[in-house]
């Protein structure tokens, strides 16, 4: 009952005109960013960070969270209409969604994506409401050692359950962690990897890192390839579906919510994994005639994943708010924003800043409702965005990002850093290295080191403490399973196929 009361109070606050405006701007920006290829929620949030310095924390966080789940709605539009995901978590939608669009069923595809996103997003927030207090209670028995292990777990899971090469994901995590180390050691004030540059004493700003890694590589790639006009999108009359489509989508909505929420809650993974898992599940449960539709436009293959990726956003917020352990790379960036406002997620957050947190959570409910309204009738407006000529789009992205970099320190140094890291990121991306683990790692490193130090201080330098403490050992075992099991699955697959 306590959670419910807090939520209602939060809702009252979220429905004030000012906050409503921020929700609206956030979800609108999020949808636009999700629709435009080459821009994702991480870049958008990173760019908005310098701007949100001057905003009051509630407003700023409402805005940024709105961008996050808004992007999940927008990303599906490009997936369905031009087979290019607006952002990674919507990639699976393209598998069936585009096939549906090709056969003239773009309307139902878009409709089921929007409705599914709404259901997943809303139910996930409800899940967030009831699960967070539980986790906060649990967190009191989590000491520094367990916390450190959980953070390592987040990174390990990201590595083992990433798309593409695991070794490259690991390298990405390591690079991110090394970047996180740059600067003065927080405890001992010793210079680490600053190579004599004073400006690096405070380390590399996470917002800068996000801008450099997520906007620049895409921009450089697309500018160099030099397409003059946007790929043509399949036309759509309106986003609508009939009873038959709705009936087929119902069970996928339910399954997608559960799968997506769980995937989101698990530290380090997030909406992307949820959408993949949902697609796989829908394929497996499809019976008889429906099974043959997969690959040719099965609506279940859109309904499930789209529900899952939005449920994943809510899920990813759970460990972030309750334990300060990000459920995804974007939530890692949001964690950074909380810290920037002087707020520390975790049990103290709910105690000290209760009204703020509940307002943000309530605003997510409001936002999801707004997005349903925006996406169903107004789909064609967003589709027009797809016609922006790529040179203008990507040129504009670079200009914005340069502005963002400047606004962080008002000096040439950040801009040059942007260029350097951007080009490194470009090289990495072109060679198949995933970049999201790097951001996650960079945000988590300071927390990890802090907790390692604390744990060892308490244990008087004994590294065995991580195994001696029962909870810590349990987490370690679970993490080890999370890493080893996928590898075993892969080996089994390799031996099963005649290669």
């Amino acid at each position: 009952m306590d959670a419910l009361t807090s939520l209602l109070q939060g809702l009252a606050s979220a429905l004030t005109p000012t906050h409503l405006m921020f929700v609206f701007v956030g979800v609108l920006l999020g949808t636009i960013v999700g629709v435009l290829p080459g821009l994702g929620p991480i870049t958008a949030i990173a760019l908005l960070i310098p701007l949100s310095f001057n905003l009051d924390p509630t407003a700023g966080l409402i805005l940024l969270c709105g961008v996050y789940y808004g992007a999940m709605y927008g990303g599906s539009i490009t997936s369905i209409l031009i087979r290019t995901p607006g952002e990674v978590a919507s990639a699976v939608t393209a598998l069936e969604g585009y096939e549906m669009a090709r056969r003239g069923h773009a309307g139902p595809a878009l409709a089921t994506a929007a409705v599914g996103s709404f259901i997943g997003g809303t139910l996930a927030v409800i899940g967030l409401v009831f699960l967070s207090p539980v986790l906060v209670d649990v967190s009191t028995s989590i000491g520094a050692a367990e916390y450190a292990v959980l953070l390592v777990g987040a990174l390990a899971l990201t590595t083992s359950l990433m798309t593409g090469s695991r070794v490259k994901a690991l390298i990405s995590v390591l690079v991110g962690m090394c970047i996180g180390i740059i600067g003065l050691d927080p405890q001992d004030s010793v210079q680490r990897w600053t190579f004599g540059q004073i400006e690096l004493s405070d380390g590399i700003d996470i917002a800068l890192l996000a801008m450099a890694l997520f906007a620049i590589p895409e921009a450089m790639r697309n500018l160099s390839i030099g397409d003059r006009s946007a790929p043509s999108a399949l036309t759509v009359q309106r986003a609508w579906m009939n009873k038959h489509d709705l009936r087929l989508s119902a069970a996928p909505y339910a399954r997608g919510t559960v799968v997506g929420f769980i995937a989101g809650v698990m530290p380090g993974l997030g909406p992307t994994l949820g959408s993949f898992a949902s697609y796989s599940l829908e394929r497996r449960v499809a019976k008889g005639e429906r099974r043959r539709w997969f690959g040719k436009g099965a609506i279940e293959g859109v309904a499930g994943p789209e529900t899952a990726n939005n449920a994943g956003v809510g899920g990813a917020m759970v460990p972030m708010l309750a334990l300060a352990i990000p459920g995804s790379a974007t939530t890692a960036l949001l964690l950074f924003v909380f810290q920037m406002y002087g707020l520390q997620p975790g049990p103290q957050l709910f105690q000290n800043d209760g009204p703020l947190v509940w307002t943000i959570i309530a605003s997510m409910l409001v936002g999801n409702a707004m997005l349903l309204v925006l996406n169903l009738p107004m789909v064609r407006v967003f589709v027009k965005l797809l016609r922006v000529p790529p040179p203008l789009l990507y040129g504009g992205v670079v200009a914005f990002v340069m502005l963002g970099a400047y606004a962080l320190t008002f000096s040439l140094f950040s801009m040059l850093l942007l260029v350097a890291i951007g080009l490194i990121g470009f090289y990495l991306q072109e060679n198949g290295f995933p970049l999201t683990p790097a951001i996650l790692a960079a945000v988590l490193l300071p927390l990890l080191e802090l907790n390692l130090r604390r744990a060892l201080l308490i244990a008087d330098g004994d590294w065995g403490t991580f195994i001696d403490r029962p909870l810590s050992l349990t987490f370690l075992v679970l993490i080890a399973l999370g890493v080893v099991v996928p590898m075993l699955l892969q080996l089994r697959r390799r031996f099963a196929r005649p290669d």
Partner: protein
Amino acid sequence: MTPVSQQTEQEAPARSGRSDVIAGLLVTGVGALLLVTALGIGEPVRPAPGIGPATLPLFLSGMLVLSGLVLTGLGLRRRPVAGFEADLLGAGDAEALEELLHEEQPVPWRPLLVHIGLFVGYALIFIPLGYMLSTALYLGATVSVIDRARWKRNLTFAVLFAVIVYFAFTELLMVQLPAGILG
């Protein structure tokens, strides 16, 4: 779609093999550099039990060296590495997804160098010339390199973008931007 995925299967191992070797060696090199630098990290005034300022840097750079070597090794053996999505989705879908996510189209290096040059140049003129002028120049140049024919559109876009963003940020959002030589 079948011809493309056949192509993908034939080309991917060879290309990714060589680039993986190079990438792996680079990673190993950078790791080694970081490792050596980490050895020079000073001792703290009050040493903490079990862990010091150099502990994580040494561990991480060591791991980088190791992973770089592993990647080089994998690249030499030319085995394309698939991720978790292949287990989850089954080979056919995973390939389709790979196609979607990691476009196979190679980036032409001459335009790339031009755009990198423009990017670096933009950063260097940003403060001296001021936001509006440097941005208009950058955008005008960048878009013209790709699509010279539509120069009227390009010019309009470059100027409008620079001016609108400048005033939006300095007047509405209260973010100071350099006025440079126009100020």
